[in-house]
């Protein structure tokens, strides 16, 4: 069984209010390391066996149409064992 991971991030030039809120909260809690924070989301999709090329193509399609909003977001598909 393999896990296909889709990571979705707002494009770098798009405003990320959630990331900003985290960045503002960190120093309040004493964490002073962060220069900037961007927040995204991660999907873990389990498939039987090793994913086939056709399955990966399908996942790409799903990532583009459902899991991400390509107008303002980018996605990355990875396979984890």
């Amino acid at each position, binding site marked *: 069984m393999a896990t296909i991971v889709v990571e979705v991030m*707002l*494009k770098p*030039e*798009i*405003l990320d209010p959630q990331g900003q809120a985290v960045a503002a909260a960190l120093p309040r809690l004493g964490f002073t390391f962060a220069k900037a924070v961007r927040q995204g989301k991660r999907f873990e999709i389990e498939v039987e066996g090793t994913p086939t090329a056709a399955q990966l193509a399908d996942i790409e399609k799903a990532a583009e149409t459902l899991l991400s*909003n390509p*107008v*303002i977001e980018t996605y990355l598909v990875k396979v984890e064992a």
Partner: protein
Amino acid sequence: MALDTVANAAAHPEVVQPWRELGLKEDEYARINEILGRRPTASELAMYSVMWSEHCSYKSSKVHLKQFGEKAPHSDALLVGIGENAGVVDIGQGYAVTFKIESHNHPSFVEPYQGAATGVGGIVRDILTMGARPIAVMDPLRFGPADAPDTHRVLPGIVAGVGGYGNCLGLPNIGGEVVFDATYAGNPLVNALCVGVMRHEDIKLATAHGTGNLVVLFGAKTGGDGIGGVSVLASETFASGKAAKRPSVQVGDPFAEKVLIECSLEIFAEDLVVGIQDLGGAGLSCATSELASAGSGGMSIQLEKVPLRDPSLSPEEILMSESQERMCAIIEPAKLARFMQICKKWDVTATVIGEVTEGTRLEITFNGELIVDVPPRTVAHDGPVYNRPIAKPAYLDSLTPTSLPAVDSADAIKSELLKLISSPNIADKSWVTDQYDRYVQGNSVLAQPEDSGMVRIDEKTNLGVAISTDANARWSYLDPYNGAKLALLESCRNIATTGAKPLAVTNCLNFGSPEDPGVMWQFAETVRGLADICLEMGLPVTGGNVSFYNQTGSVAILPTPVIGVLGVIQDVTTRTKMGIPAAGLQIFQLGNTADNFSGSEWAHLYGQMGDHAPTPDIAAEVRLINLLLEAQPLFESAHDLSDGGLAAALTEATLRNGVGATISLPGEYIPGGVAAALFSETPGRVLITVDPKNHEALATLATKYEVPMHELGITGGDSLVINEAVIPLTELRTAHTETLPRLFG
């Protein structure tokens, strides 16, 4: 890339500039060269291109819109007129109200959620900028056919965006419209209205006076959002479809806006600003040039001081960025410390980016290098003006009258009525409006589906305002001059039906391409009709918005002038609701019915447009409004007859409280018979219920105002009975309420 400075522009006139890509025409570019006496720098070109776009300069509409000034009725209520961020009217007791409606159509097509959300954010800032506290929003929305795939792409996002942003701000959404028509496929209309309230003495204007005063940018940091959004998104059709260097999507942050509202109101309360302007379309280009040209003219800006979210932005991009939740204020140096203190309290970034100067030039430097040196008026107000060709469209000569079935049996009454009230345009819109918070702040008196939205302004005196937005685009298609008049009259009637007195008008004119002479004719006729009716009704236009280029290929949307009317009610506890409250009441129709099927929803069901719009009878409408206002204490309920005619009004009035009605339609005296009585959309009619003991008093008033009054029947029971047709309310409710959840749920 080396910085394109003013000196560089003067020394290198031969540089080829991308004026065409920025949406400028050849003669416009030549005119900029003439104004400056040299070629513009890259930054100047960015500013001119964005400020001279259709969206910002109103270059195609200006020649027509000036009628609103020429035909303006005298009004003591108007405190601030067209030209400022929003008009302001006096509603008595020392209160002033400001309201305005704007479009965010193209951005909502590209990214429905964020487009609609930032549309709400933008109009709220316009209202805030006048010194007012925003108190309510409304959103007239128009979509392609309810079963079209693109409608399913855009509608859920747009509705969620309107709700998401407005709900986060804590602003009640008290009404609007949801309309479906094939011409809006690929061109949804997202219009957003906001109303705000202030004391007379708190009115703020967008002006930069006083040499040495500081220019302060406050609110969110500037990023790459919506660069070129104004010139590219709002002024060119999507066919051009070039990949933009930066995304044209602005992302809203409603929490940042909420903080900005509270911060600004505290700053206003201490009278710390000379002038103020929000940053919307065209961002800093617009704010600096408009503030400067409304003042003495001189301003210097150090652009590198603008706080950036994305440090890679070039000066041109900083000038054009449409990052949301930003404001620009002019402040006396002595008041800066207190201003900064308040911003710090609210955790709002505020930065001095320049000052008002003695001269008449807007000078912008970047790290000490002069990159913009322009007369601000030429950017903000002296843009190109086009008197575009106008031609009556050919379609008007090939219109055909409606040909609709007779409704002559109980079965036909029932089946036609159920078909109509379950059609997407007439069906219950709760699926949409339930996503909006309509009670937050605790001052909402009436909200959708009532005839108008109403909010209380003063808790002690119960003074309130009512607002309604209306458009019948099919009538405007058939007859744009009368269509605009009818929309305004309907809006006034909706206001008066709830018990408020119409006071002022705003508008959002949505049209196809102004380069199409037919569209331009529709626009010119609409503006002429609107200006005439405002003069005839004595209602001032406080401002508005024009949205052109709403078309896909060569197909323009129906001409859609959305009219918003604001009214005043002295005591909101006396308002009239639309729902029948109890059994045993007499039902009357005020006003006469004729066979006005052209442009009606019933004809639309049969795919017919018809051939003419009704001719408005203004004198009769005024008499009806006066009757509604004087007879208000006698009404148990009142509901305007408009889309879907009497059939829709009876459905809504009975279902509201689950009280049935028994109606006997005379039919014979109405041209068109029972079909017309039920489905005709003759303007100037209201459905009312009265206690039998008040019948005589009402009849006396109706005679006084010469308003025809027809007894239709009596309330009660758990069915809507029309002649021999019996429709149980449960069946009626299912038909009326299940359509939208079925389509979009």
